[in-house]
């Protein structure tokens, strides 16, 4: 992996924001949907009512806001850092989701799942460490 960019303070801050806001967003979406309850009735009117309740839920909007903040941090950091350098941040995101799910929502995470999450992080890290462009400019 090439580290052409030095670890500037603002890069670290923005990558940390990406990992945190991305994971927090997903966890808040789960919190909101958990409150709404499992969708099991597929009748259009029941789906519509679930849809309506979803968009009146505080945690859902907080989650969407958090995911938008993630996206803004992502776009900003990509304006000076390589994609292949930023990518590992999305790998650590999987670990943060598991951690926040455990800490904030009290989800039970078996040991096999923790190991699986770590293996996924490793895989995403390897996917990210390859050239971001292999096709010719068209």
């Amino acid at each position, binding site marked *: 992996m090439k580290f052409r960019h030095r670890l500037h303070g603002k890069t670290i801050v923005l990558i940390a924001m990406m990992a945190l806001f991305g994971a927090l967003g997903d966890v808040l*979406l789960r919190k909101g949907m958990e409150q709404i309850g499992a969708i099991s009735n597929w009748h259009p009117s029941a789906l519509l009512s*679930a849809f309506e309740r*979803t968009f009146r839920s505080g945690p859902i909007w907080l989650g969407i806001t958090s995911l938008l903040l993630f996206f803004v941090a992502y776009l900003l950091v990509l304006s000076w850092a390589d994609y292949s350098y930023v990518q590992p941040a999305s790998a650590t995101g999987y670990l943060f989701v598991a951690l926040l799910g455990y800490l904030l929502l009290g989800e039970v995470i078996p040991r096999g799942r923790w190991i*699986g999450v770590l293996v996924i992080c490793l895989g995403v890290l390897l996917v990210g460490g390859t*050239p971001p462009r*292999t096709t010719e400019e068209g």
Partner: protein
Amino acid sequence: MILRTVLSIGIIIFAGTGGELAVTRTMKGIGEVHNFSPRNLLRVILRAFRSGWMWLGLSLMALSFFVLLMLLSWENVSFVVPVTALSYVLGAFGGKFLLGERIEARRWIGVVLVCVGVLLVCVG
């Protein structure tokens, strides 16, 4: 795992990755953006929205988001989010066969690791 969970994961991954591939196709067609003045960015965005692929891409991404919300109504987030990493697998195949990207050995190893990890998350 229940059938509706498997189906939802399939839709999230296929619609999400399909959407990203369609948006990538649009943006690569427009070409690399060098001029970041608000005026030029607006022109790039307007051009992107004249492409049918862009609308297809955005619709697929919206579908993926709503199915994700639905799945989160009955599954734990610590299960759902790691499993959606399977989109890296589909993305590698889609990039290779639909966009003609070259995938090197190291990326394939990463793809295999993601699959092993997802398997562990499912049985763990």
